[in-house]
């Protein structure tokens, strides 16, 4: 499984539809404070099935929907799509027949969010399993949030079990 593109629409400060290509090797993301870099990381975590609003730095999940600025009205819907190259057939369940997968998560203010894989509605659980089988996902240690890199050092030994479990 390879990730190829992330598309945000109405998600946090990315009100206009924005595409981030994910290509092999190292892609640098730069910009001034508060411009929206960490929001990109959260968009990726969110589309992979994140269930905690707190990890999205908000009070409730609706806080991920564009809240408006001095010049633009707030939105009612936010959507993130993740495009995946599945030629290696790494994915077990939902959509193993397709060469390319598009996982979409969409939230509407006040009425929760839903998931689609290649246009077909699926449960959050299906999406979480899809990514867990490929050693990634919303809780993957490979998504290192800002300021959290050394958290594993100050954790207790029992709280580091995910290191072993993830790899097993």
């Amino acid at each position: 499984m390879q990730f190829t593109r992330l598309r945000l629409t109405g998600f946090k400060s990315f009100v206009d539809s924005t595409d981030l290509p994910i290509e092999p090797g190292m892609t640098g993301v730069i910009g001034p404070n508060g411009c929206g870099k960490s929001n990109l990381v959260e968009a990726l975590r969110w589309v992979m099935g994140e269930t905690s609003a707190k990890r999205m730095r908000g009070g409730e999940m609706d806080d991920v929907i564009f809240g408006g600025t001095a010049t633009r009205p707030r939105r009612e819907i936010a959507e993130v799509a993740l495009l995946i190259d599945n030629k290696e057939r790494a994915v077990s369940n939902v959509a193993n027949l397709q060469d390319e997968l598009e996982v979409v998560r969409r939230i509407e203010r006040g009425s929760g969010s839903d998931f689609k894989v290649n246009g077909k509605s699926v449960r959050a659980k299906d999406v979480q399993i899809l990514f867990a089988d490929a050693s990634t996902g919303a809780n993957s240690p490979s998504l290192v949030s800002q300021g959290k890199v050394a958290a594993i050092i100050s954790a207790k030994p029992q709280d580091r079990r995910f290191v072993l479990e993830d790899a097993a």
Partner: protein
Amino acid sequence: ARERLEESFNKINEHFKVLFTRLFGGGAAELKLAWPEKKDEVTAEEGSALADAQEAEAAAKSKKKDPLEAGLEIYAQPPGKKLQNLSLLSGGEQALTAVALLFAMFLTNPSPICVLDEVDAPLDDANVDRFCSMVEEIARDSGTRFLVITHHRLTMARMDRLFGVTMAERGISQLVSVDLTQTDEILEAAE
């Protein structure tokens, strides 16, 4: 499941030892399985008859060595320093040790993507250089795609491609592809 866990522990530990020494330019580090101290107290409480206690003791003993119950202890010793409590390591040393462990996990069980959000912030220039070299190598060897968010110009210069996030319109994020000569424009845009 027990064998698999032991096997992946050994693999991660082997990688961790090597990566730590390369990131620090020396020193030594290792992982150990750790069991909570509480096992013995629990046994004493549970055991009513002596036989029960002895049985519980034996069970706790065999449980004691069960990798499925274990936590993970990290030992790290920067070059020329004594082995000591992890909390005495400096901010930069802790970040570097965490990176070595993260990459050891990748080499054991590659993940399709890795996102590092200002992981290089506490590092000095010499360590930023070693960190970037390692990211380059892991991206090549394991095929993991990296998204690296940074303010360090040294790190920007090592990337295969750069994207700038700007707020030309206040409060609205836009993404533009950037080459290295344009970084100042993007970063200054905030003024």
